[in-house]
């Protein structure tokens, strides 16, 4: 992921509106927090998909 992707990741994930990157709704700490949340969410989704594959539900 590029660092431009670092800024836009919450928008791409559908969690923030584009304008909220610039209008003061969120600050840089919020960006770090949402990354932590999305990392955990992605890791859980990956584990869930892996379990489904192994269990033959894919």
């Amino acid at each position, binding site marked *: 992921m590029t660092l431009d992707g670092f800024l836009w990741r919450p928008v791409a994930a559908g969690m923030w509106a584009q304008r909220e990157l610039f209008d003061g709704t969120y600050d*840089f700490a919020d*960006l770090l927090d949402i990354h932590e949340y999305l990392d955990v969410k992605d890791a859980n989704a990956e584990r869930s998909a892996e379990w489904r594959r192994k269990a033959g539900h894919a």
Partner: protein
Amino acid sequence: MTPKTKVVDVRGQKYQIRRMRPDVGSFILARVLAAMSGGASSGPMDTAVIGQSIGVFLRGLDFATFSFIQNHALSVVAKLEDDAPVPVVSDSGIYVDTDMESDLVLVMALTVQSVVFNLADFFSDGGLSTILPAQSLKPSSM
């Protein structure tokens, strides 16, 4: 949750530092990482190391980039007068505290403190691993 503000003491005077906008913080972070050019650890980094790295980064900047970063860094700094925060620069970038105009040491100290406060959590939490594809995080880390 990541703390929103921090109070620092510079020569006996307290200043409150807030967080920068996401786009500004991300822009500065990109420049810091480029300046580190592979020298950064993908794991958690010590605060002192982060401070040193950012100090080296600021010294190596061209004038325009340094001015941009300094203006944004100081725009989130407020002088605490009777615990009431008073911005040190106006929206147009003029020093509200006229003593700062001739106090390069104070200006630089606040600039570095502001950048370090805003970026330190990224490095101390091992944030570099989140932009490296080979790394993954444990769900229990939240």
